């Protein structure tokens, strides 16, 4: 499937993956992560229950202290 991940086209072999699986494939292991799927925030406890499909827009941000 083809999705938009952080504004870039990204192709995965599987047709459906959970947010959790994508994070593992992409090695997103930062301490403070924010996930938005099609403009909706996904909470950490829902990463493994939320599936990402063809054409979805996924944003994975990591927040850092400082300002």
């Amino acid at each position, binding site marked *: 499937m083809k999705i938009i991940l*952080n*504004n870039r086209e990204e192709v995965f072999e599987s047709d459906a993956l959970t947010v959790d699986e994508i994070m593992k494939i992409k090695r997103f292991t930062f301490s*403070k992560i*924010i996930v*938005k799927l099609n*403009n909706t*925030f996904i909470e950490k406890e829902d990463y493994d229950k939320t599936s990402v499909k063809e054409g979805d827009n996924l*944003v994975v*941000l*990591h*927040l*850092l*202290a*400082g*300002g």
Partner: protein
Amino acid sequence: MKYEDIKKSLKNKTVGIAGCGGLGSNCAVALARTGIGKLIIADFDIIEESNLNRQYYFYDQIGQPKATALKTNIERINPETIVESHLIMLDANNIPSVFKDCDVIVEAFDKTETKEMIMKVVSHKMPEKYLIMGIGMAGWGANNLFTDKHFDKLIICGDGVNEIRDDNPPLAPRVGIVANMQANVVLEILLGKNNNQIS
């Protein structure tokens, strides 16, 4: 666009500054110098000597509330910019009312928890507003790492990697760069893309 026209279009614009530390104080000053009509600034904190390595305050202002001192400093720079100052701790309940009249909101918090909070509040309760965040500014050097990333109305400025730690502290140059990048994005939103510039 001539500077007179720029000032004219910024005159009736309002920008919210959430936090008056390194990012907030420097971003607010850049916007006031450019001629923004009104700034709504908010912070609960007091100026400490350790803040002066990067925040837009003076030695004789140590002990003053940041939101009060920043209003004073902006009025000394450009008295035509109206500053509405709130000495409060911003939270999910007060952010929508404090910043309701803003065209754009600048996130200038230090903790990741409050950064996450404002991101969600703006997205859920004021989805029509732009939010400009600063993420990744600790240390020195590495100018090439700075970018802005646009996710619809959420825009993130910074290097995206350098977190503030005891052994990687925030210093004036990189904090100032990110604060000014945020101000620069605000201008791009309020004035539109600059067609006369090579980019």
